């Protein structure tokens, strides 16, 4: 068979548009933001000529920003942990429960993902606000005198973040449990293990990859969440992502904003790597 010369390059044309798009508009911008974080702050322009380490110096010398990174990480940890505790049983039911429930449950877990994040956060402001449904109902029943502080604080942000990211915890755990051969659990039971023991010794360890994926996903998503903390936290509680975006949009401090964004990403990445190492060790043990 005669192979026309263009055949060798033909397939590459298929990937070329995607490769150019990702290379030019994803890789280059990410490199650019690293360079940007070392630029001089500008006077009336987004950045000035020359390079400096000052943006990182400013971050470490101002306790306000360090504190904010710690707060953001803390909110991320709590959100991830609560998602795991709330989500695991649901994931288990979706994977192993009665089939009538399964299709409906699956649809119920997925459908929130189809609703925009602004709308879902807005729903929480209706529920949690001082004049919101929860506070009005409780006041109406005479259970509380004044409104409970459910919004404009870390509590409200965590509640809403758990809601927004719970499906991202449930789905990976569900597919991990689906991948476990049910006969393993049956074997454990037939050898006299109780339901709890069989879960603790068989199902839970084998679903660890799903737990790991879900935790990393939720943690990263909650660190970088902007809409939810900004609508629920208002001006009083700000996470790092909110501070960064506001700093860039309102004050045009591009070099410093880049440094802040990168510091948050690097700290987040460090925790993800540590978490990954810990879970892999646990796996092998």
């Amino acid at each position, binding site marked *: 068979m005669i192979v026309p010369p263009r055949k060798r390059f*033909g*397939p590459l044309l*298929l*990937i070329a*548009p*995607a490769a150019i*798009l*990702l290379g030019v*508009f*994803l890789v280059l*911008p*990410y490199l*650019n*933001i690293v360079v940007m974080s070392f630029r001089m702050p500008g006077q009336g322009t*987004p950045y000035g000529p020359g390079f400096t380490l000052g943006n990182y110096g400013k971050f470490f010398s101002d306790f306000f920003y360090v504190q904010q990174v710690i707060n953001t990480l803390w909110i991320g940890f709590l959100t991830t942990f609560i998602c795991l505790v709330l*989500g695991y*049983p649901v994931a288990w*039911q979706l994977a192993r429960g009665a089939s009538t*429930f399964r299709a409906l*449950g699956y649809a*119920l*877990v*997925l*459908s*929130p*993902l*189809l*609703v*925009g*994040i*602004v*709308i879902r956060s*807005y*729903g929480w*402001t*209706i*529920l949690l*606000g001082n*004049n919101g*449904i929860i506070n009005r109902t409780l006041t109406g029943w005479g259970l509380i005198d004044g409104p409970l502080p459910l919004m404009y604080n870390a509590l409200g942000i965590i509640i*809403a973040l758990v*809601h927004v990211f*719970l*499906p991202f915890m449930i*789905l990976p755990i569900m597919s991990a449990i689906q991948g476990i051969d049910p006969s393993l659990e049956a074997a454990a039971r037939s050898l006299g293990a109780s339901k709890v023991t069989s879960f603790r010794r068989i199902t839970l360890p084998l679903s660890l990859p799903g737990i790991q994926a879900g935790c990393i996903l939720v943690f990263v*998503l909650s660190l*970088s*969440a*902007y*809409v939810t903390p900004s*609508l629920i936290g208002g001006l009083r509680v700000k996470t790092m992502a909110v501070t*960064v*975006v506001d700093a*860039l*949009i309102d004050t045009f401090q*591009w070099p410093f*904003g880049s440094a802040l*964004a990168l510091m948050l*990403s690097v700290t*987040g990445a460090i925790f993800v790597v540590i978490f990954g190492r810990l879970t892999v060790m646990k796996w092998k043990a």
Partner: protein
Amino acid sequence: MSKPFFTVYCLIIYAFLLAPIAVVVIASFNAGAFLTFPPQGLSFRWYLVFFNNEVFMRAIRTSLWIATLTMVISGIIGTMAAMFYVTHAGKLKETVRVAMLAPLLLPEVLTAISLLFFVYSVGLGTQNLVGMIVGHVLITLPFVFINVSASMESYDPAWSLAAQSLGAGRFTRFRRIMLPLIKPGVIGGCLFAFIISFDVFTISFMLKGVGMSTLPIQLFDYLRTNFTPEAAAVSTCSIVLTMAVVVISEKVLGLRIHRF
């Protein structure tokens, strides 16, 4: 854990997942000016206010226009990349997959910020839609890729070879053999790209030009200062639109969209 207890627990979680969405829909039919629960009587007045609000209507038109453009561009690029991934990638398969999913794995805020700096650095700016569309295509590309490559897994390359041996050219083979077979994945991926683009916030927020806004941005701006049920009416229309796209694709067209 006993079984009924377990079922009840799961039902509570499902209720938690649906609560804020249900509340928005119910609130949109509220007759009063303040959101209360239960609503003070049923009314469509906030829908009328919304339909007569030119600011929101313009934002919806912008959103639909951007989502349509995004869907077409992302659909073409994503489908081509999926074809390469399934049939030609060879040893590079895993690399291609990770690269194509990268926009989904990287924090959206960071992608949005770096893209904003980049469009200014290269002189594109944000006064045209280029930056915004590029951002939306980046974010939606993984979804097209996932759906199309999933539908191609069952495609046998021998079918293409058979067509080739019968004298069909490259494009004919694609149009007559492959496209009809992978159509469900392509349509599903495109529809999902449309929904994601219609709902995406952070990318649009960073890359919007002065005086331009999409529906989520307009809603966000409105919610910072207002609390009338008009926002609930806007949200409900947006929810109905996306749900309609999903229901039509899954029930009428019989597609199964891969969201993950």
